[in-house]
């Protein structure tokens, strides 16, 4: 077997050194009822060629985004990732290293994390950022838990524009921890409506911009209302490229900014692994979840980086930790950081503008179709349209003709009464011909 270096002779020699007669003697502590001498009922080993055949068979049964017009977003976006990114993250020293517990021989990973934190803090307009969480949805849930620790209050108000999957992740964690959640009904332009729901028990207000319907909102007034009630404002973003065009959460008064970072440096991968961005005001940092990388010096006074403030974490604090998180999303954070370095501020702004323009062009083309109404008043690269038909059916019809039209909102939140709403996303990868073809097919499908 190609991944196992020991030869039968090695095994015999080693058993001799150990003083065991057979490998079974090393498993002597396993109760007799559970001892197995035969392999389980699964296929036996396979060579690379056979494995590739099986994986190719599965791969071919999927329609990849590159195969044609593709307008799917709702929390994951197909952007072009420079070849350099994948080359670097496949370097052995990044790909096959562990959590940097020995800083003297992990300065590569640690410096990258420090740079990543600095980039995320700049993008979100916040004081500090952590070294990443699993994804945007779990980062949002962790932010709600953190707000509870900071305010010692136990109610979270979620706007009707928060991605329903994010609401689900928040509810899972919140209910486990005894935090109550008030999620307002889904609405296209909903962020301001949360102000009325804030009361003295409110620990945090969770708003998303651009929201799940694509609506971009200046949340400054919500921040003021939250702060007046002693609550924190958590601003969620599922499309990190929007930071290049829209006001940052920090500039609008956010206490905690969380985001899905997949858009920068990471592929779609059918939903994961992604990278959760988490940033907050400096005064709250000791309540933050996840790993933090900090600058220090070595015994010779040279600058170096270490994991720090770990007294918040589970391996030190156990049941008193700020979170149970151990693993983060290091390699995806690296991909994010490399892509961000390649873009630079100028490239990010340009990329964001391109995304916005494609969305404007697409919205214009769709709005011209009789019976199709663009619902989102202010958007970045994604918007909602109302169709004269069930959106899920339309998506299936167009898929059969080679266009993946977007996400029917009903898939995210069945029973919301928005079965005719379709979420349409564009990126810099969208071609003008994609837009034309989409509009033509949609016009036919909704007649």
């Amino acid at each position, binding site marked *: 077997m190609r991944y196992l270096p020991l030869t039968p002779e090695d095994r015999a020699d080693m058993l001799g050194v150990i003083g065991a007669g057979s490998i079974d003697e090393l498993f002597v*502590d396993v109760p007799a*009822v559970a001892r197995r001498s035969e*392999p389980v009922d699964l296929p036996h080993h396979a060579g690379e060629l056979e494995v590739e055949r099986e994986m190719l068979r599965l791969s071919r049964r999927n329609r990849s985004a590159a195969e044609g017009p593709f307008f799917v977003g709702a929390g994951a976006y197909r952007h072009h990732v420079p070849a350099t990114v994948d080359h670097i993250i496949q370097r052995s*020293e990044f790909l096959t290293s562990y959590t940097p517990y020995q800083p003297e021989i992990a300065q590569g990973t640690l410096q990258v994390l420090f740079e990543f934190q600095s980039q995320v803090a700049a993008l979100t307009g916040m004081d500090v950022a952590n070294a990443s969480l699993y994804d945007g949805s779990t980062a949002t849930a962790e932010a709600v838990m953190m707000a509870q620790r900071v305010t010692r209050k136990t109610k979270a108000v979620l706007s009707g524009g928060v991605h329903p*999957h994010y609401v689900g992740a928040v509810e899972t964690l919140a209910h486990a921890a005894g935090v109550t959640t008030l999620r307002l009904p889904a609405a296209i332009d909903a962020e301001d409506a949360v102000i009325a729901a804030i009361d003295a028990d409110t620990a945090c207000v969770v708003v998303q911009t651009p929201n799940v319907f694509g609506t971009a909102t200046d949340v400054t007034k919500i921040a003021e209302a939250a702060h007046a009630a002693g609550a924190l404002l958590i601003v969620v973003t599922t499309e990190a490229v929007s930071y290049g065009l829209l006001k940052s959460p920090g500039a609008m008064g956010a206490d905690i900014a969380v985001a899905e970072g997949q858009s920068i440096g990471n592929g779609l991968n059918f939903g994961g692994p992604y990278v959760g961005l988490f940033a907050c005001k400096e005064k709250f940092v000791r309540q933050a979840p996840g790993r933090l990388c900090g600058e220090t010096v070595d015994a010779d006074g040279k600058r170096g980086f270490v994991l720090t403030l770990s007294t918040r974490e589970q391996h030190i604090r156990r049941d008193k930790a700020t979170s149970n*998180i151990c*693993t983060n999303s290091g390699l995806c954070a690296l991909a994010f950081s490399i892509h961000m370095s390649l873009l630079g501020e100028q490239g990010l702004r340009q990329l964001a*503008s391109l995304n916005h323009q494609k969305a404007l062009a697409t919205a214009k083309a769709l709005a011209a179709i009789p019976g199709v109404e663009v619902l989102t008043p202010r958007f970045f690269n994604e918007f909602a349209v109302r169709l004269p038909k069930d959106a899920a059916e339309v998506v299936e019809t167009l898929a059969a003709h080679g266009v993946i039209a977007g996400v029917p909102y009903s898939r995210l939140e069945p029973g919301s009464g928005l079965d005719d709403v379709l979420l349409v996303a564009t990126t810099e990868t969208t071609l003008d011909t994609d837009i034309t073809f989409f509009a033509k097919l949609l016009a036919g499908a909704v007649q």
Partner: protein
Amino acid sequence: MSMNTVGRPTRPEAPNDSEAGFTSLSGGRGLLQDEPLIFELGGWTKTGVDLPDAVAADGALAGLTRDEPIGLPGLSEPEAVRHYVRLSQKNHAIDLALYPLGSCTMKHNPRLNEKMARLPGLSDIHPLQPQSTVQGAIELMDRLAHWLKTLTGMPAVALSPKAGAHGELCGLLAIRAAHEAAGNGHRKTVLAPTSAHGTNPATAAFCGYTVVEIAQTDDGRVDLADLEAKLGDHVAAIMVTNPNTCGLFERDVVEIARLTHAAGAYFYCDGANFNAIVGRVRPGDLGVDAMHINLHKTFSTPHGGGGPGAGPVVLSEALAPFAPTPWVVHDENGYKLVEEAEGVAAQAFGRMSAFHGQMGMYVRAYAYMLSHGADGLKQVAEDAVLNANYIKARLSDLMSPAFPEGPCMHEALFDDAWLEGTGVTTLDFAKAMIDEGFHPMTMYFPLVVHGAMLIEPTETESKAELDRFVDALRLLAESAKAGAVERFKNAPHLAPLKRLDETLAARKPKLKWKPVAPAPLAAE
């Protein structure tokens, strides 16, 4: 043209200064550059991408646009490649040498898995595109689920948890939901041994449970009498790692399960160490109700400097109805991801995260499983255990094994009794290993053993590599015992950096780059 017959010296001069104290003039070190931060490379107007021109934003976003500088540096492509490759050279990695971190399971990461994860049909697909267009992806999830269920002997699996600790959360939430459905919501205690991973008590506390510790016997196992005394109508679950963090198989695990079930509680098994028994022992045969499996440990998906992971949770018949969404169903029309629970399943707790879990990790883990097969995976467990016992056998005369009697499983645990009186601590010894070219073992964990040193070689080390490692440790151990304290106290000497000041980092947290403040304007 004449040859240069004078030439240059081809033999080194006899050293006339000692290595100690030698530093370069510029901060470089041999081939290692002293690499600045991206923020210090001066690229405030640079970019490494060529994008089409974009026109300025339209009026529709008036008042919402970001008009202030963001503060992000850019690098051209050659600068970026160099920056990151230079940084990479300051990392240890499993591709360079043994990574003996006990409980972390750093094994070889096959490159075939990386290649498969990059097939466009598996990587360039969106979690929310119509299910009719991703039948192969859903089938792959179903195949992976089948392998995990068969290997563990369990009837159900929740794939979506994103890492081990996330899996623990999933398992405990399923347990909580099951108790609540049965009218047993008053059960608010979780029992866990002192040797547990920190994530166990952290997860239990997160779920609103009070954690009570179970005592350990002198031979490193759960104390059955203490467990029995602490079980009762208030206990929701026990969390036991098996093989445990001392590297030992819980001999009485079947009895542990029986006692737990008799008390009306569930048995959560931390499956971080499943790699020691995969293909040889099925947790389902031991009475386990829920167990997470770290795909990045047992099934070799890369750790990437700390993640991503993936932590599917297998569930018993009793807990299966309480699995989170989504899950896969399969009929004559094909594969379907059920994203919204209906009917009895709606009493479960919902979803762990957005979308369907760590697909990129599923692909890698499935490729690894297919490669090894049932026979190879059994050999994986056997070789992992053999390698650990070999290390234990070869070091036991110089170092003190914490549990000398009987075999260990996939990792060998030593305490620091053998260092007593040498002036060398576990930390010093670990740091000195760096100078010998090896990554240290896990230190000071588990907490039940003084000055713990936990060595896990995994099955992907050759005997020659193990011997090289053991020989280096033996030389170090002899040196410590001979009183060469200096070698240890200031170690590492030869790493890219000397020992780092972690106290300073925590006392004055500096968590991002800040521009150097401009010099104050001179008074006019």
